[in-house]
């Protein structure tokens, strides 16, 4: 094998690693507090916490005196902006500093009884928790809870006072539907779990929370329905999540890249959705959902290829129409992958493919074009991709301008100037539109592969194109997502599951859950659900 293909010398790599780790350690702050516990002295505790949260200007310290006993000093610590200020003043400070007196008028609460009394009768907060670990306290403060410290006690009370400005639940931006629920996930994990729980109010819906990211401490929830899901799958998902040791999880995409089966594949083997109804449907088929705080996109695994060509609406519209629409979507997927390559192959290798009149018409258009057809298509495709990217990145008010420039300048002017054949513009435009008919994540893969196929097709015509498609086919056949073959249920074929690939069976005929996903609990519903007018209904 050629020398440059070998990996670099192992020694060199090691050396540089050591250097990095040394320099990293010296600049890192002291982390010894992570193991420490509180001391009974309030001032010591406060000082320590202040030292840990040094230069965190958004952390607030409020010291006050307990209403029933002036000896007892209290301190409340919280992060401004992450907490519900009204709740803090009403239910903690006001309650403890003033109103406790009403609960037990005239009584003097001794220092020894104070903790118990405050927990039982003083605090009006719903969620409280007691701890003495500094690590937990710091975590609580930074997550939006408020921490109450008491002089004389080596323990703290954590109050659930989270409340921050968050985006309201709005319509899904990435997965719009005509019919179906209009809500979408938001950036707050709690809201998202609530959206799921609202759809599946069953004790079997389990939502387990992890913290991932050494610096960001992001909350990640794993949701599944016990009894439907394959327990091995849950264990696998958890173990893959626990493997993750990174500093930050900012979006579910981070998780996706770290848990997927085939990191080198252009095809996504983890699905994501921002629609709670879709996520709920996935859970009900036996999949596992991974919710990440800070992003409205929820991951679902295992993922099948066909999912990307399905839409939530498919199950809300009537099945005949849905099937027809799916045919269009599958056809579009095919088009968006192969049409430009086919066009190149037909025009520059196999003119015998086209009917005579069509060929003559294309030939006439191309007569003045100075480029080979491959260059022409390549440039137009790149232009289209540029326009598309610009359309996304541009501030919204400018979007209009891009489309005008794109349509007029590139399309019309190029054809008029004789730089591009009109047929090429049609091909590229149709391909572009076709790639928008199905899920964005899959269409990215298709778009990338389209260019590869174009190259192959320009080099070897239909033979190159088919070779490319065969390679893609073999690749797709070898993919698995969490143990489930990516192309199933089509390949390997599982008969009953073909009810929901291109053809969408009527709901009353979908008796079973996907066989390879929900392994244990196959039965979805009763079998005789086909509706009929009363007189034709079979008796008995």
């Amino acid at each position, binding site marked *: 094998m050629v020398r440059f293909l070998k990996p670099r010398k192992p020694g060199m790599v090691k050396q540089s690693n050591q250097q990095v780790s040394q320099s990293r350690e010296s600049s890192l702050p002291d982390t010894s507090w992570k193991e420490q516990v509180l001391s009974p002295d309030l001032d010591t505790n406060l000082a320590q916490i202040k030292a840990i949260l040094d230069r965190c200007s958004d952390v607030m310290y409020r010291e006050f005196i307990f209403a029933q006993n002036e000896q007892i000093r209290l301190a409340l610590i919280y992060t401004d902006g992450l907490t519900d200020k009204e709740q803090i003043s009403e239910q903690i400070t006001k309650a403890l500093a003033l109103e406790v007196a009403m609960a037990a008028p005239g009584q003097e609460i001794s220092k020894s009884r104070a903790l118990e009394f405050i927990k039982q009768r003083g605090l009006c907060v719903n969620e409280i928790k007691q701890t003495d670990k500094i690590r937990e306290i710091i975590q609580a403060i930074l997550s939006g809870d408020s921490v109450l410290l008491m002089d004389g006690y080596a323990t703290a009370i954590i109050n659930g006072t989270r409340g921050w400005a968050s985006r309201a639940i709005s319509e899904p931006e990435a997965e719009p539907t005509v019919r179906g629920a209009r809500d979408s996930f938001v950036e707050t994990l709690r809201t998202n779990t609530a959206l799921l729980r609202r759809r599946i109010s069953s004790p079997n819906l389990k939502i387990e929370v992890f913290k991932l990211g050494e610096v960001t401490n992001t909350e990640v929830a794993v949701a599944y329905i016990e009894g439907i899901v394959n327990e091995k799958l849950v264990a696998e998902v958890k173990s893959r999540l626990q493997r993750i040791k990174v500093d930050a999880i900012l979006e579910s995409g981070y998780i996706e890249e770290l848990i997927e089966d085939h990191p080198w594949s252009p095809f996504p083997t983890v699905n994501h959705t921002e629609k709670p109804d879709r996520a709920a449907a996935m859970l009900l088929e036996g999949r596992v959902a991974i919710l990440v705080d800070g992003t409205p996109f929820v991951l679902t695994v295992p993922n099948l290829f066909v999912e990307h060509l399905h839409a939530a609406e498919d199950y809300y519209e009537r099945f005949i129409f849905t099937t027809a629409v799916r045919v269009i979507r599958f056809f579009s997927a095919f088009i968006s992958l192969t049409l430009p390559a086919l066009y190149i192959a037909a025009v520059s290798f196999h003119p015998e493919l086209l*009917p005579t009149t069509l060929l003559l018409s294309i030939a006439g258009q191309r007569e003045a074009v100075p480029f080979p057809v491959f260059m022409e298509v390549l440039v137009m495709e790149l232009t289209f991709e540029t326009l598309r990217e610009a359309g996304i990145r541009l501030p919204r008010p400018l979007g209009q301008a891009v489309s005008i420039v794109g349509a007029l300048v590139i399309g019309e002017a190029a054809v008029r100037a004789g730089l591009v054949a009109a047929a090429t513009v049609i091909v590229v435009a149709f391909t572009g539109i076709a790639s928008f008919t199905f899920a964005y994540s899959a269409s990215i893969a298709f778009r990338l592969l389209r260019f590869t196929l174009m190259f192959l097709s320009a080099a070897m015509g*239909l033979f190159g*194109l088919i070779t490319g498609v065969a390679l893609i086919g*073999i690749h797709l056949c*070898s993919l698995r997502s969490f143990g489930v073959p990516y192309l199933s249920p089509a390949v390997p074929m599982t008969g009953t599951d073909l009810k929901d690939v291109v053809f969408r069976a009527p709901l009353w005929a979908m008796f079973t859950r996907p066989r390879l996903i929900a392994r244990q609990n196959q039965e979805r519903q009763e079998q005789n659900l086909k509706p009929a007018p009363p007189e034709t209904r079979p008796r008995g």
Partner: protein
Amino acid sequence: MLEQGKIDSKQAILLLISLVLPTAILTAPAITVKQAAQDAWLSIIVATMAGLLIAALVTGLSLRFPGKTLLEYAEEILGRLPGKMVGLLYIWWFLHGNALILDEYASFLCSALMPDTPVIVFFVFVTVVAALAVYSGLEVLSRFNQLFLPLVLGLLLVVFLLAAKDMEVTRLLPVFDKDAAAILKGAVIPASWFGEIVIFALLIPFLDRAEEAPRVAVTAILICGLYLLICILVVVMIFGPHVSARWIFPTFNTIRVVSIANFLERLESIAIAVWMFGGFAKIGIFYYAAALSSAQWLGLKDYRPLVAPVGVVLVALAALCRNIVELLNFLATAWPPYALGLFEAGIPLLLLVVARARGKGGRGA
């Protein structure tokens, strides 16, 4: 075990169809029609019968030795050294047969699709694709086949239906114009194609339900027979026996004839493109057989290291063939005794007889 994957019966049927059909449909009609004229379809029926017999022979033999491939039980039946010899012969046949298929494939593409391209390009690319599939294992190979073969079969049927406009049943008459000898002679070549099903003996251990092997083989042979029958009927009904016998790839010419409403025409490039998937699968299966049996012969734990060397040998063997005339001549004259006589019927029959005589094998012993 060299192979961890398991394939189900449906996939096995499709694999066997790919094993026989893609090249059979290409050149067999012309060779058969040359012998039996318009009675070629009778030859195909005879050949299908022969294919069924070979299928029964192979599956019967394999089921006596559950979990073992042809090479493994050949050693068990004949003893170590003769068994090894037989194994070596089979490895040679898998390689040589595959090289011939590669030649056929490349010369067809060359004369039908890309006239100016050197054949070596086809060899290399097809081998690379097949190698990738083989490297990914039997499961992936059979899934790939399951993904694309229905497309091939469906498209062929559609094209034949579209050609119905130009067919005339009278071209098939008179029946039995040739004597039985000619019909039998015409049956030999397609029978040798059907006989390629002997490779199934390498795959039976990897079936998830091995006891269904006879059913699988019979179904596959019947489907292949049906397709070949339809193909021959269509070809003769369009061109008549004289012209059909003179084409090299009559099926290809048939597809070129299709013209409906001045628009649905010129389908041959699309048909070739789709047919190519079948070619990939067929070469892949032979390739897999060669790689797997070489690994078994050498006693390796994994056949994957052999994929690249086998591929190189394959391309080299294929490049030995000088032109299509040589290839066609070999296929028409030397191939039947060589393949059918020796590897497809001869050795398996010998193995069965010896196994019975020596009382080897689990069932029926």
